[in-house]
């Protein structure tokens, strides 16, 4: 139990992979969800981007962005509090969380401008 809690600590190298794993899960969810939505209930083309599909995809992206941003800030704080190995781990994790956050924002941008099923 103690070791599991230690693994959750933001200076643990497991955070090297958590941020980008979240990015991957978000990416698969958005791509897969979009494909299923278009197969099951494609909105009318004249609706443009104002569709339930776009709204849902944006909501999911927003949630992923907030979660990753919080983890970025947490790792930044930890990096300032430590030296040596722990600082290295937290700083690299912070960078990776930040990249994942921006990655979600950048990849999700087309949802604002492209109709879903054309």
């Amino acid at each position: 139990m103690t070791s599991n809690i230690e693994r959750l600590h933001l200076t643990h190298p497991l955070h090297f992979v958590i941020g980008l794993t979240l990015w991957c899960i978000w990416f698969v969810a958005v791509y897969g969800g979009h494909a299923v939505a278009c197969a099951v209930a494609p909105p009318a083309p004249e609706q443009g981007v104002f569709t339930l599909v776009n709204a849902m995809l944006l909501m999911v992206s927003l949630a992923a962005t907030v979660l990753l941003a919080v983890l970025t800030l947490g790792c930044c704080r930890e990096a300032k509090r430590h030296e040596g190995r722990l600082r290295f781990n937290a700083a690299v994790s912070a960078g990776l969380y930040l990249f994942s956050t921006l990655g979600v924002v950048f990849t999700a941008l087309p949802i604002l401008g492209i109709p879903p099923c054309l």
Partner: protein
Amino acid sequence: MTTINRQATPQEPQNPRDPQGLHEDLHEIWGNPRGLKALTIVNHTTLGLRFMVTGMVFFLIGGILAMLVRTQLAFPDQDFMSPDIYNQVTTMHGTVMMFLFAIPMLEGLAIYMIPKMIGARDLVCPRLTSLGYWCYLFGGIILMSSLVLEMAPNSGWFMYTPLSSSEYAPGLGSDFWLLGITFVEISALSAGVELVVSILRTRTQGMALHKMPLFAWYILAMALMIVVGFPPLILGSILLELERAVGMPFFEIAGGGDPILWQHLFWLFGHPEVYIIFLPAAGIVSTLIPVFAGRPIVGYGWVVFAIIVTGFISFGLWVHHMFTVGIPQLAQAFFSAASMLVAVPTAIQVFVWLATLWLGKPKMKLPMLWIMGFLIIFVCGGLTGVMLALVPFNWQVHDTHFVVAHMHYVLVGGMFFPLIAGLYYWLPLFSGRMPSETIGKWGFWLTFLGFNGTFLIMHWTGLLGMPRRIYTYDTGMGWDIFNLLSSVSGFIMSAGIAMVLLDIALHFRFGKPAKQNPWNADTLEWANFMPPSAYNFVSLPKIETRHPLWDDPDLPRTMAEGKHSLSVANHGRREMWGTDPITGKVREIIHLPGNSWLPLFAAMALAVVCISLLVRVYPLAGVFVIVAAVLLLRWSWENGAHPKAAPDAEVAPGDPPLHSRTMDGPGLWAMAIALLANGSFFLCYLFGWFYLWTVSPEWRMPETSPLSLIGLVLAGLLVTFGAGVLEKCVRGLRQKRDAGLAISMYSISALGFVQVAITLWVLLSANLEVTETAHDAIMMVGLVYALIHGGLGAILTLLQGLRVGYGYVGAHAPFEPAVVAQLWRYNVVTFWVLVGALAVLPRVIGS
């Protein structure tokens, strides 16, 4: 004994033996046999070299095929080759270069170099290294034999369906590809698993993650990418071979399949593959530039960041190879954006390399010449990659020579140039001799100029509309002069490569003897003898910094004199440290198996399976599957407390216990990483099921599910109960309790066999029409997957029961049941997911 001594502080010997005596003792244990017994060698140094030499042979064959292609295209309306032979040659060129040269060559380098760089004596699963090599060699020979027989695959190196399906590719060509490549991939996965575990668990004392050489970071990422990235292609190959051999219509529209599923599965592997090739090469660059700049790399943390980002993002780009298949614009935009994202970590690395050169005092030795060539070519290839990430441009140049040019700029620039730089850099380590700067420079300039002459021009022929994979063209198309220049330059490049190979060959005899650490490098591999001994290091040092040889130039001498740890050999075991994956603190002594015939025999049995499937003699294939399984189980038998492994557990005072006497050995990690690969395969299977269900235009779901839900639930409860009992046994072993262990193991095994029997009954009673509908075919694949895993779990547990009886497993050696328990946990999860996906969801959602 079962407690992990996480704070172990090994004692350095007070009065070490004389160095020559130590060397002889270690050589007695680790030394390689000669003659026929050389086939039993499991040592990483020898096998790494074998991988690289074999890879170079395949490279020469692939290069000759490339020259045949360029000869054919040199002039319009040529009939130097018939269209069919041309298709075979282009397909085999791509296949050989990607699967038989690039990956195995880099794996070979990693297998050779990683233990030396991290201060270990071998990789953690030496017999697996050997099995991997033999599978690679036999798979390669099987694949190449198709060329000699003039029945090579001819559908392109990505084997798109339906072109590769039996209707359009009758004969055995596609089968050679599917079976041969799957066989070779056993090798890649073996190397992937053991490189991950070796890097995480066998670094020398004190080498915490943040002190690890950058090359090890790159290889760690590459190995994990292989583990996750190769299973999609293995699944795709199995499905396509089943379609061709049995008629299961996975990729056939009329049967409810979809040819685009193949493209997804192929590129789920294929795009990460590019980075699997690039990352180790970038690791060579990140290793060499600081050495020749004479200063530490600028931004070690940034490089680690870039490696991890590349490893992940590269899995989110696969659809950019499929922009023209009719995917919605929004989905294309997702993949276009992700494709642009991957340029960020690559650019970070380029700027780090430039900054290191800028702030250091670079010496333009021969390896650096190749690094400079890499920087120029790879940056150009990266830029055209960003162009191709843009959907409208991609549509314009899709399937033209522009894509061929881009791919070669990335792969030759990003892999071949750094590889040659690395070979020149480590040549003194391989042989103890220096290469010729003069021949080497000629080789570089001919290759560099020839390469750009060949492929820069191909960008133009591509923009002029010349499609790829056409065997000839009319003279009126305006491509004549460009193709001629490309072909001439291709031969100049070949001359350059021939000079490099000549230089390498000659240096073994005529090269000047190299001094110790000739480039003044900072990493531990240069503390080896030159050429290295079979055990690498007489004693294993404690590492305090990222640059052990810069901070303590005397380290090679003191290591060779046995003044550091584990310099005892009178126990007769092959030993090295098992350390904490994060901090590098010593946790246990890992004892390794010695030379063995088993990997060779197992690979030979698998080769017979491969050939039997190819010629469709299925009973013979079945017999040799059993032979291979028996050999592999025998291999697993000679472990732990077995007399051939480590019958006694004595260690020097102050040293930690042997890994087989703890609950923390590397086998746990190897099983976990192998299950990661297995999980990737399983997720791809689920993707295939849901993809066909959602997308396939002729998908036919029956009104009622053919699978017995009661039967599946009963089987699921049995496997869950068995896993629970096994977990209880493992908890008992942690507390040194082993009463009734054998009976428990036999009982759990029996539960496993009953689960298999029930699952088999469910499968047989479903009366699936596997050749009629993709629905039934893919359902059958899922159930067979469950059967194989259930059977494996039951057999391994049965063996554990036997091992308890022999005294190889118990409170004194508690490790192995914990390894088997991981498989049972995996089986529980995947079985219930299968029940949900195949039997519950169709009932809930309907067709």
